[in-house]
């Protein structure tokens, strides 16, 4: 992924980026009353796609069914769109847009993509089970000092450190 010609700017101070993220989170609480969320928008997309394939089945299903015929008409879908646009704006500004697969120099693209896919399936499933992801639970919930969100965050890092060793080759 190294590219001399693009000359991307180095990352800024992570603590100041954290302050910016904290202010976005605070704004979400003060304006929306909900905090930030990302997996909710992705699940809505899932409900929309499943509805395109099997409408009656999806509408009668116990979980997606309660979201109705227009699952995409939901504030987290708009937030996720905003995340994409904000990310695009910032990465374009810092010349960090680079098409390709991010991986280690000797790792194969196939390995990296299959790990990205399986990690995605696990995360998408787990975020529904825990009613949130890194954004909705770990950030928003802990900012509100909710006990369940602290449990989620502790288990998230425990799980991450448990498996990281076995998938390290993708970064070699």
């Amino acid at each position, binding site marked *: 992924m190294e590219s001399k010609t693009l000359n991307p700017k180095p990352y800024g101070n992570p603590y100041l980026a954290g302050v910016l993220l904290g202010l976005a989170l605070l704004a979400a*609480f003060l304006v929306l009353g909900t905090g930030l969320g990302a*997996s909710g928008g992705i699940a809505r997309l899932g409900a929309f796609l499943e509805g395109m394939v099997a409408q009656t089945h999806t509408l009668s299903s116990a979980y997606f069914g309660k979201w109705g015929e227009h699952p995409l008409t939901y504030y987290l879908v708009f937030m996720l769109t905003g995340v994409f646009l904000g990310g695009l704006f910032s990465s374009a500004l810092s010349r960090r847009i680079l098409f390709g697969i991010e991986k280690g120099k000797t790792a194969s693209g196939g390995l990296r993509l299959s790990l990205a896919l399986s990690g995605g399936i696990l995360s998408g499933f787990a975020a529904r089970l825990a009613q949130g992801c890194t954004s909705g639970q770990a950030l928003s919930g802990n900012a509100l000092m909710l006990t369940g969100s602290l449990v989620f965050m502790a288990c998230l890092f425990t799980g991450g450190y448990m498996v990281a060793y076995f998938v390290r080759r993708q970064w070699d």
Partner: protein
Amino acid sequence: MKTFYGLNALNSGEAFFASLVIGFFFGLALERAGFGSSRRISGIFYFTDMAVLKVMFTALIVAMLGLVFFSSVGLLNISTQIHTLKTYYGAFAVGGLIFGFGFAISGWCPGTAMVGLASGKLDALVFLIGAVLGSILFNELFPVIEPLYTWGRSAQTSFNEPGLAFIYQSLGMTKNSFLLLFTAVAVLFFWGAEYVERMKNPEQGGDYFNSPFLRAFCLLLMVTAAALPLLSPQNLGTRVSADISVQKSPESVPSTVRAFMKDVSSAQGHMEPEELADRLLKQDSALMVLDVRPESEYRAFHIRGALNVPLPEVPAFTAKNGESGLIVLYANDMTHPAQARDELFRMGFKKVTILTDGLTGFLERCLKPVSLRSEPVSTETANRIRSWREYFLSFGS
């Protein structure tokens, strides 16, 4: 301050637009942090790049400080304006563990993958496809795993909501001391993170180890976390919330105005704490005072003479007992009693009133000792407070 959630307007076009704008800054912050790169994100699991820890804990402290500030000066009511998730220990622990597997395996989470996609990363797109599939999988398996989804609900109750648990309550400490403890832990994490980066990745990591910036930053966080509680209304000497208006010092208000104000407040179905205290002291039999909080809170403390009828049981209780006199509803604040009153109105009960400012107001205005009050109190009022305290604080022990 009213939020879209508090106004029940999260599904409005305005809320969608606000979400888009907030999402834009969310994505911007994530990209600034370098989270458009899965290699950087997963660095936390190999101790080579601890950016995730630094960014997350900084963001958490900033948001916590902001929320504590806005709620302590009375601008934000968390119980009515903020959406809070109940705690399901089992579901969140299992979900967190599986999510952690996915996070470390892929190097992405849903929000950062969106930023990765915007940065052109194919692996982010593949992750997002997986996450959509995982959500559909959850929907398909939901009938089977539903018991897991609601497994291990917390036994705590907050804001009259069973299962809503706050960390500081779970740990048996105050909100302010938890804020300070959390900040201190985060500062230790920051120093630890810089240290291990320096050990593991000496060329690129640990830039801020023992740097003047990090020292000043950590000091600022600690001082703010320690000083913020001093901003609470009690310490400012004034009460910022709704009760500045009517009965601040009844003696100074002309009696006609006072009568008018009283009419207004009774027309809205409110009863001032002073009036309730006096009428209970005189054993007024026309009153039926109902404490609509959960039984555990009632047992901890309640207004003498009040019956405990938890919120869901109020309609049935009132229907059974009929309407003999005036029903006074109270909880810690006014939200739930107001809902119950409206429901009783709809059922046809007209002589229902709620206690202005709830139990909190009653304690503050009737039972707070004269010596602890910031404003001067007339001898007559002091005597009333003394008799109220004798009557309401002496029973039951």
